């Protein structure tokens, strides 16, 4: 394995460790606000994974939408409802042990599946500008869902307004 390979592996493990640690923090931290911040960290980690997978555009989208919009929205919501959660004795509900059992089994199952399936490895070097192709695909092949999603966003907007208005 050449140096670049070793370095990229190291980088990968670092990013993976950070992402999972942040993810763990997101679900375990008692303070919801801190959990929200950890969520932002996870999003960054995932964006970095996209970069390693050479999906630069998606990494940018991840940062813009997930961190710029969704995470901020969540943090706002936390602050709006914050006063309540201060004197909670626990942030984890009564069924957590069951949930833990389920996810452990699920993870083992997924892991076995991942190892067992003969995944296709036809990947070739990319190193080219993917965005024009992506744009073309979105406006030709995927035109229909693209347009539908625009209507969907409008509906969600109206819905959020109706439900959350004073």
């Amino acid at each position, binding site marked *: 394995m050449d140096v*670049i390979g070793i370095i*990229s592996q190291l980088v*990968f493990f670092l990013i*993976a460790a950070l*992402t*999972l640690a942040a*993810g*763990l923090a*997101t*679900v375990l931290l008692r303070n919801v606000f801190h*959990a*929200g911040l950890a*969520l932002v960290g*996870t999003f960054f980690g*995932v964006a970095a*994974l*996209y970069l*390693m*997978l050479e*999906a630069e555009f*998606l990494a940018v989208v*991840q940062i813009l939408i*997930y961190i710029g919009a*969704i995470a901020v929205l*969540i943090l*706002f*919501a936390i602050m*709006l*409802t914050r006063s*309540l*959660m201060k004197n*909670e004795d626990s*942030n*984890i*509900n009564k*069924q957590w042990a069951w*949930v*833990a059992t*389920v*996810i452990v089994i*699920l993870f083992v199952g*997924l*892991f076995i599946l*991942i190892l067992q399936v003969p*995944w*296709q*490895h*036809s*990947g070739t070097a*990319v190193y080219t500008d*993917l965005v024009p*192709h992506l744009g073309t*695909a*979105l406006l030709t092949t995927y035109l229909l869902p693209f347009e539908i999603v625009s209507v*969907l*966003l409008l509906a969600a907007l109206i*819905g*959020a307004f109706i*439900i*959350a208005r004073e």
Partner: protein
Amino acid sequence: MITTIPLVYYLTISAALFCLGLFGALARRNAIAVLMGIELMLNAVNINLVAFWRYGSPDPIGDQSGIVFALFVITLAAAEAAVGLALVIAIYRSRDTVNVEEIDLLKW
């Protein structure tokens, strides 16, 4: 890079993140924390999609369906978050709680 990091690594990270997210969604009391768990699950799915695109697609440039799918997932996650947070705020206004366990007027 593609030669040095096997696909399975990405898939494992994704599986782990998915399970963490599921834990958050099922075990957190705060409705907003539940939402955060769901977002983690969606991110895990996206890692899967992008990794499969990068490794598995015979024509990663011409056929970017994995990326497109991920884009749609992100967009819908945003829409979902908007509606979900609106619901959380509505509930908070009407009953002063965002604890999922206390939202149980409807049962049996």
